[in-house]
């Protein structure tokens, strides 16, 4: 009995937060999604979502989000792993986070300069004999910069779970004659899967709705659901359609969370 009361007591701020800043906005968004552009109650927006334009957009958003998450994971996991082996590992970890404190827009502008036709990246390509390429406004630059931005968010949870790993387990695996790859596949990776999962969640889900970079770095050649929502809210002022897309994003998110949900692990 006492347990329950204390538990409910410390949950108060969090539940309050959920009600005020999650449930209320969701209801608001849901409410708006049932109004068409002329302010009439209707299902027009939902119908519109299932037209080829929006379906195509959804698919491409998922595709880019998938690519971004996969590449971020591929880069972040070895980085996190190597970081745990360095001498001042916590210092290095902090140094991974520090760049993300510099304003995103400023970094995007820096990338505009670096990737430009006369930028540093092309000068380098020129130097090694490949010659000037169009880097800006391509899929490559978009994915590169997105990965750049998400890397710290992926490294942090993975680092935490790698760091938690009991070294004796690895010694044991080693003693039992497991190869390095075997140790990784059978011991390290499964034990850090929770970190990987939360890393993927914090990358994949926001990647679905990236918007500023789609214009600055991809020159609007990549259109994500986030871009469309932004357009509807800020340009068309069609809050109904914007909300409808948002409703679908929220549904997708629930699905993703459900699929990657943590299973109970025995210890």
């Amino acid at each position, binding site marked *: 009995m006492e347990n329950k009361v204390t538990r409910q007591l410390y949950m108060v701020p969090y539940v309050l937060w959920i009600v005020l800043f999650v449930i209320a906005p969701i209801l608001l968004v849901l409410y708006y999604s049932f109004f068409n552009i002329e302010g009439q109650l209707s299902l027009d927006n939902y119908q519109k979502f299932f037209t080829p334009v929006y379906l195509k957009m959804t698919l491409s958003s998922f595709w880019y989000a998938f690519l971004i998450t996969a590449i971020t994971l591929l880069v972040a996991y070895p980085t996190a792993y190597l970081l745990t082996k*360095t001498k001042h590992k916590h210092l290095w970890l902090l140094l991974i986070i520090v760049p993300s404190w510099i304003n*995103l827009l400023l*970094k995007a502008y820096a990338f505009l300069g670096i990737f430009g036709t006369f930028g540093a990246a092309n000068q380098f390509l020129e130097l090694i004999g490949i010659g000037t390429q169009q880097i800006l406004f391509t899929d490559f630059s978009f994915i590169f910069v997105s990965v750049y931005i998400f890397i710290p968010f992926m490294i942090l949870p993975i680092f935490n779970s790698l760091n938690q790993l009991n070294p004796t387990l690895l010694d044991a695996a080693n003693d039992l004659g497991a190869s390095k790859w075997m140790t990784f596949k059978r011991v390290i990776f499964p034990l850090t899967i929770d970190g990987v999962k939360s890393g993927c969640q914090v990358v994949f889900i926001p990647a679905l709705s990236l918007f500023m970079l789609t214009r600055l770095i991809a020159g609007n050649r990549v259109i994500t659901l986030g871009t469309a929502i932004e357009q509807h809210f800020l340009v068309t002022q069609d809050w109904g359609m914007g909300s409808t897309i948002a409703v679908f994003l929220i549904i997708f998110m629930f699905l993703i969370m459900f699929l990657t949900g943590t299973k109970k692990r025995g210890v």
Partner: protein
Amino acid sequence: MDRKITPVSKIFLVIIFFILYAPIFFLIFYSFNSGGNMNNFEGFTFDWYKELFQDTRLLIIVLNTLVVALLAALFSTIIGVMGALGIHAARRRQTKNTLLSINNVLIVSPDVIIGASFLVLFTMAGIKLGFYSVLLSHIAFCVPIVVLMVLPKLSEMSPTLLDAARDLGASRLDVITKVVLPYITPGIFAGFFMALTFSLDDFAVTFFVTGNGFSTLSVEIYSLARRGISLNINALSTLLFLFTLILVVIYYFINQRQQKPVLGGRK
């Protein structure tokens, strides 16, 4: 675990750090450009730094940004940790997953929607737009990330540890403050830093909920971007960057001396 880092790994880490810091060095480099833009470096100057210190308005904005980030990170960490404890304590897996999904709604929702719906909420509640509305919304969108950072730590904690504590006669409060919190401290710090990052970087939400003369750095930068960013913003970023860097290093070594690591786990 084998403690050596192979040269290949070293090169990999160097490349990662180089990429992470490249745009920042780009910004720093051009902050000394007398040419006034980020394209061709004409000559060395400190003018932008001088100009920066005469701009009281900009300095106020910087301080506003910092104070909002610090307070938002602080409060969202407190609320988030409570929430994580609550979610972790949930008995049924379904309850857990539902709570977790609700938790993540704000991470997946595009900033524009969060901004617009918060704006509607605040005006409905009669809250004057300005410092408090910005702070409240920053706290709101930072909470879920803290929860995500803390939860993996909680699920790694072995239940036997708690049982042991309880068997030794610890009260529930004691269990939390003396056993649980110390154990999840790395996750709490990770959450705090992530919250700080989210808050410092946010533009879209702040834009909607700010008003009456209150502004943050990213909103200001966004509005300045129309003419191409002025180099005193570069100068500002340089100073902020160096400041955080020094702070991080000092913080780390003070902690090091006390033999207590900062982020990540304990060995």
